[in-house]
């Protein structure tokens, strides 16, 4: 994939550092920091019932455009989003990071994750694979697309109100 890296200026180390940062901002409920990662044409998608559903016709757990991401963040920041107030204690591991392809200005990246969520209900593990589209913006990298396919996407899920 060295050709890919040269073409886009995103090397695997940079990509990993970005994914780790995004994960930490989500884990630590740094809502403003997390929201600032997104591009204006953002899409944040958590499918339900498998990874090949049509989000324009089928239910998804989350299917947020940039506008709805903003609403979600604003709701969390009211402090009265009870499903995250008090917030879950979270830590996630990101691994198996691969640069999948380059499409125009976007680098498509895949990675596995495991999130451990602790709240009064108990401890819940969330695992899956995420597809990211990353785009260089000046010195920064921005997130244009995040699709989170849960290994449990076909099962009944507990409330998932933190940023996955």
């Amino acid at each position, binding site marked *: 994939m060295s050709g890919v890296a040269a073409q886009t200026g995103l090397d695997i180390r940079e990509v990993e550092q970005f994914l780790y940062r995004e994960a930490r901002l989500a884990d630590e409920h740094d809502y403003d920091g997390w929201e600032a990662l997104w591009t204006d044409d953002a899409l944040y998608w*958590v499918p*339900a*019932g498998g990874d090949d*559903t049509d989000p*324009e*016709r*089928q*239910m*998804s*757990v*989350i*299917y*947020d455009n940039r506008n*709805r991401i903003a*609403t*979600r963040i*604003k*709701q969390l920041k*009211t*402090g*009265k*989003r*009870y*499903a995250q107030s008090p917030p879950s204690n979270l830590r996630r591991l990101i691994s198996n990071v691969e640069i999948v392809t380059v499409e125009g200005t976007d680098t498509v990246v895949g990675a596995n994750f495991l999130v451990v969520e602790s709240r*009064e*209900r*108990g401890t819940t593990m969330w695992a899956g694979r995420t597809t990211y589209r990353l785009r260089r913006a000046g010195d920064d990298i921005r997130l244009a697309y995040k699709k989170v396919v849960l290994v449990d996407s*076909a*099962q*009944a*899920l*507990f*409330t*998932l*109100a933190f940023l*996955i």
Partner: protein
Amino acid sequence: MTVQYSELIQPERVHGSLYTDQDIFAEELQRIWYRTWVCVGHVSEVARPGDYVRKKVASQDVIMTRSKDGEVSLLLNRCAHRGNLVCEDQRGNSSTFRCPYHGWTYRNTGEMLGYPYNQGYGGKGKLSLGLGRVPRVDTYQGFVFASFAADGPSLKEHLGAAAGELDRLARLSPEGEIELTAGWLQHRAKANWKLLVENETDGYHPQFVHGSVFSVTGSHIGTLYSDKSTAVTRDLGGGHSENDLRPEFRKMEPMNWFGTSEARVPDYVAKMRALHGEQAEEILIEGAPHVMVFPNLFVAEISVFMINPVAVDETVQNVTAVQLKGAPEMNRRLLSQCIGSVGPAGMLLADDSEMYERNQRGVTARVPEWLDIRRGAHRERVDENGFRIGAANDETGMRGFWSHYRSLMEGEAQ
């Protein structure tokens, strides 16, 4: 154990043990879930002959099928040989099911087709065994209901006045039919199923539990349930109830019930006006119902919920978007708004679910033992059709639920 339900369920309070007692839960399965009419799905989920989809009625694993004659059956997912599951896929299309264990085969109506090495049974056609069938299956406005009791009230009798609310949903479609074809979110909560049902009927909580999303979106939903609202809570009898928001919607423009305007869905509005003439105005203003159909079907305008109990303190709430046949312009919006609102990450339902779970933990405290359901009892009145109604945020619906629940739990067991 003999539980005295008349002591636990009183006109203005119900006992905390109703949400935590394992024996009561076991008795509910027998007297409610495996007896009365329970909603399991919609005919549009098995649109073509051979379509099937797996469903749950409490712990019962049921396959909803459509035969080549178009008949919808509910089969128990249990092989007549030694009880293996005969269907592993969640959905698909097949006229037959073949048990993977020893290869017995069945038609999608449940009749046995055959068994391998048939000499072991003295030849072909010697066994009169088939898949179990839910004894009574009936549909209303395409909703498929199951009753495990061989006899009892008909679906029509069970639905009573709630049927009119499902009619009101269907008439929003230019073809008079809704479809539930968007797939289901399955939302798990560590809470007794009745806390979900009660919350669905509760017009008191929205301002508080959903204040966060109302404030950031400027939604008018909160005011529909405020102290100044002219909306009413109606006990429809049979444990069914509705939050009738029409008195508020009637003060608004057509399509405002859906938070939109005519100008944004011009094709839909034109179709409805062409179809219904003058009556279209009323349909487009009054919008969709907000009705809890005992014990597990909840229609909240644009979302359809089916509640399924897993354990005394665990419930799965299935939810999907209403889709109106013949209204693609509406369906995209219905789906998008539904996804934003419901399910595990929904901006409304995640907070409801948080409340169910905190409520479940709360009721395990030893005192004061009771949950109060008297809100608005002193100001209840009877409407022109003889139904008991209360203010928008009164607990009239909950009281209706409990009185029917009590009659089922106290009546003769079947």
